[in-house]
């Protein structure tokens, strides 16, 4: 478009042509225009693969099963009345909140341990602890599935060595829920650790020295210096992790497939079961859209807090 306008401008007679030519050149040379043009490929990708599917999902969620009639919010109302879906809401929240809290706690502890290891050895440990995060999740979950296997479970073998009975890891509702959370914590903790480690390293050493002279113990330094200085990064990692954990699909799908008796389904796996496996795409779309208001609500408050604190402490 820009090229054709340029050619058209050069071919117009002098006088009349100079103004649009100059305007076009100025427009193309403006920093904001260049910035926009550079971002355009990404904008197109996001529009094509995120915005369009999102709006299409909203449209789909308002159709009947055969996708022939508009039913408004009927699918949402139907889902909310269904016991299985109520279970899915509870499980999704349990899965995401418990896993994120555990990841944040373990990540915080590991980051502190790592921070206190001399820098030469730190690299090795940091690399080792990042392994769970870099292995493709589907692959590592298969390994976990094998370790939870009723016949060949490595965990049961260990329990047997101590004279204990086999545990049906993925066969009983609450234990299966715990297993899915455990795998998610194992996978996601390194992300928290690396983010917290970076945050820890950015806290000026002199603040700790000032606190030491002010009379702070190690615990008081943690409470009054480390945590307030890390609040932003903690908020952002928790929010980010909450979003990805709520939307988790691989672990539940591979480990339990949502069972036993739908007791481990989360939004994504249930949407897959209803929409793809059972062929009710509008209902699946409605299911997956339930995550949106929950996450938008959390994101709004977390990001507002981050912005406020950034304004407060930025120097």
């Amino acid at each position: 478009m820009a090229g054709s306008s340029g050619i058209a401008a050069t071919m117009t007679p002098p006088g009349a042509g100079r103004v649009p030519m100059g305007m076009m050149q100025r427009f193309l040379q403006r920093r904001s225009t260049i910035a926009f043009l550079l971002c355009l490929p990404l904008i197109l990708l996001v529009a094509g693969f995120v915005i369009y599917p999102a709006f299409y999902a909203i449209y789909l969620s308002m159709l009947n099963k055969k996708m022939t009639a508009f039913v408004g919010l009927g699918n949402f109302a139907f889902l909310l009345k269904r016991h299985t879906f109520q279970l899915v809401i509870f499980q999704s929240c349990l899965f995401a909140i418990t896993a994120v809290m555990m990841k944040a706690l373990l990540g915080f502890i590991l980051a502190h341990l790592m921070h206190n290891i001399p820098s030469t050895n730190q690299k090795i440990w940091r690399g080792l602890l990042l392994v769970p995060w870099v292995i493709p999740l589907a692959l590592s979950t298969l390994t976990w599935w094998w370790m939870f296997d009723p016949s060949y479970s490595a965990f049961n073998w260990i329990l047997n060595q101590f004279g204990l009975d086999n545990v049906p890891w993925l066969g009983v509702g609450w234990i299966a829920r715990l297993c899915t959370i455990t795998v998610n914590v194992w996978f996601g903790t390194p992300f928290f650790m690396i983010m917290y480690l970076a945050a820890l390293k950015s806290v000026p050493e002199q603040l700790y020295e000032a606190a030491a002279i002010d009379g702070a113990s190690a615990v008081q330094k943690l409470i009054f210096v480390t945590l307030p200085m890390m609040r932003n990064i903690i908020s952002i990692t928790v929010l980010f992790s909450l979003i990805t954990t709520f939307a988790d699909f691989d672990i539940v799908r591979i480990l339990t497939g949502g069972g036993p008796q739908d007791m481990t389904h989360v939004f994504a796996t249930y949407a897959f079961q209803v929409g793809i496996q059972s062929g009710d795409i509008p209902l699946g779309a409605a299911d997956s859209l339930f995550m949106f208001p929950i996450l938008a609500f959390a994101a709004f408050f977390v990001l507002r807090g981050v912005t406020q604190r950034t304004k407060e402490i930025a120097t």
Partner: protein
Amino acid sequence: MAEVSVRKVVKEYDGGVQAVKGIDLEIADHEFVVLVGPSGCGKSTTLRMIAGLEEITGGEIWIGGDVVNDVPPRDRDIAMVFQNYALYPHMSVFDNMAFGLKLRKFPKDEIKRRVDEAARILDIGMLLERKPRALSGGQRQRVAMGRAIVRNPKVFLFDEPLSNLDAKLRVQMRTEIKKVHQTVKTTTVYVTHDQIEAMTLADRVVVMNHGIIEQVGTPQELYHNPTSRFVAGFIGSPAMNFLPCRIEEAGGGGLFVQSGSNLRIPIPAARTARYAPHKNKEMVFGIRPEHLVERREVGKAGFEPVELLVDVVEPMGMETMVHFFVDGAPVCARIDPATHAAPEEMLALTADMNQMHIMEKDSGKVV
């Protein structure tokens, strides 16, 4: 309030590098002592060892009559002001100042009384609700000092507190620090690399170099009677002129300084006995720029005429700096701005030889 004693203190880092090599220093109660020296001389390390932020490899540190080698910083009853202030960015000015008192479980009204009092001394009463980011450099520095004052500690430690301020503010804050010390009279150890700060603030100045103490004395002692070439060159701005020389005998028992082939200046009679043992040895002649002035008062004892070829003239308003080369060695004179001086012309000067220094060439010791 307390005296501080540093006895045979050594600091050795991993790999055997010694930052502090067995220094001894006695600081009296209420005294303001400044540790000064170039980068890497061990002054900050010494301060941090007094604070308890660095472990001591050898020797003892006493504060208020107790050995504190193994006492953590929080139990030493000291307060420290850092170079980049180290204010807690998430706390208000009030909370920053009150933090140490809160941790020590002071009652709320006592905390408020002390913070208000410190804020009054430092004139930061209107800033108490602000966060550090909303303060200027000078205000932050005041808050950092306030945080130290409210604790009413035995010793104040300052680690280059004015380095991050601009030149004008530095002069202003220097005066304020001195005023605060006159008000609260707490024993103070102050580290700086700026010799003017050291001279203006200190009761006594400790000049350090390569991990040892070169000289301890009042600012006047260091200026007039340096014991080494390092101290002579470090104290005073512009620095003292140094010229390689020989002490030679003149007729009638007198001595003169012979530098290169052209510069030959008589030594005052009062100093001949002092320098006689160093006759005909390779020595270093030192004279400050302010003792090498325009031609005047010749004839007064010790005021000797000198004539040098001008290299560069730097008019500074209240005075003019004139630079010369004597056999390749740079020499600076501080002359009256009314005196005519131009490059490539000879300038008639007066050397106040009563203020001269002679140093051993190898050891740098002032004789």
